[in-house]
């Protein structure tokens, strides 16, 4: 019945997360613990095949030097010493260069790129016009009757990022809700306020070259959210965000 239905407008918003690509650096306690455990394990462990071979060959060399005319086995076959193998592996290791943990985007503090802060979650924030104000929000779009809230959120994502995004929405249930009432000037009988339902999606590929970004956008971490979002909104959004 229309009279009993509350006059709220419904919106579906999408919180697009880019998962961290590197593990976070260990804390001091964790580092000390790890070092201690390594030392204990090293002292408790037995020799591996490679180490036994190395020790045997060292002994053989020593014996050969002491007794000059002692030739144990026929040295016809070329024997690769374990020491040589180790040196070869060391050289190979020195040639290998790991990618830097702090990328260029971090140094420039360029918040529009995805390469920044590789060890924490990044969220998409978009500038939208609501009423008279331009606000930084999670991308949201109004709900059309007859569709599921999840498809509303996916539509919101598609309007801001284009159709070809590989993002995975996990479930049909929303993660959070934010409701607000319109200021008295706009409030009518039918439109008391709005409710925004938040959904979460994970970005599968970090390749956004195909995405057509229409409005101003930012990728921010959880701590930086406070710079952009309003306090009430921020409180509700923080409730469903893992660090």
């Amino acid at each position, binding site marked *: 019945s229309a009279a009993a239905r509350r006059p709220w407008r419904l919106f579906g918003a999408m919180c697009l997360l880019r998962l*961290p690509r590197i*593990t976070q650096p260990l804390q001091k306690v964790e580092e000390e613990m790890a070092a201690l455990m390594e030392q204990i394990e090293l002292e408790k462990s037995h020799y591996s095949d490679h180490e036994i071979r190395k020790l045997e060959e060292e002994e053989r060399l020593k014996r050969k030097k002491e007794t000059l005319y002692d030739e144990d086995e026929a040295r016809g076959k070329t024997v690769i010493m374990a020491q040589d193998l180790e040196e070869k592996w060391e050289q190979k290791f020195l040639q290998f260069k790991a990618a830097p943990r702090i990328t260029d985007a971090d140094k420039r503090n360029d918040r529009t790129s995805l390469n920044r802060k590789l060890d924490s979650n990044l969220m998409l924030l978009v500038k939208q016009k609501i009423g008279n104000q331009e606000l930084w929000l999670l991308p949201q779009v109004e709900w059309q009757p007859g569709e599921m809230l999840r498809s509303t959120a996916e539509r919101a994502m598609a309007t801001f990022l284009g159709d070809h995004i590989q993002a995975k929405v*996990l479930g*049909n*249930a929303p*993660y959070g809700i934010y409701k607000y009432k319109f200021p008295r000037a706009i409030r009518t009988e039918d439109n008391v306020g709005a409710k925004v339902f938040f959904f979460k999606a*994970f970005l599968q590929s970090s390749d956004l070259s195909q995405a057509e970004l229409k409005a101003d956008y930012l990728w921010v971490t959880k701590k930086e959210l406070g710079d952009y979002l309003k306090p009430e909104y921020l409180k509700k959004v923080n409730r469903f965000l*893992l660090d």
Partner: protein
Amino acid sequence: DALLGCHRSYRSRPTHGIGKFKYLLPKEGPKKRKEKVQMKEIDAGTEYQYGDVNIQMTSYDLCLVEHFAQYVHRLCNRLSIRVNESYAMPTKTNEVLFMEERGSKMQLDAVLTTHQRVVQIRGLSSTFAPVLLEIIQSSQPEGVHLLMKQHTEADFKSRLKSRPELEELLAEMS
């Protein structure tokens, strides 16, 4: 005389059979050899409940995978999700051969072992499943691949070894 005394209860003694308890336990039937096939739950309508879900973790590093599997198991215990089984798949060994074309033709070998651990869960409600997935995803260590899928009969069969001789005899008989 004290050395020769023995305190064994004879059948005439009132304390005979004082330590027996096996008659109090429930009777075990004869041992069965067959493994029971899986029991699957149907996904209902509104109250979504996933049936058996397998969380498979693969990696080259054994300690890491085992510790992660233990962590997932304990996490499910804490969240009171029923864990059916937690088992390991057989390890696969890969030999990596490098052929150096330039210089002397040498073959460097490396032996890689791939380990896989599976944690089977039942009774996961669909409102909670995304949260669980996110927790596990965010606490994934480096070098560990995570896969969550529904349990099928093929998964169950992959754990069992086929017996070619038995199959031959059966084929000959029938």
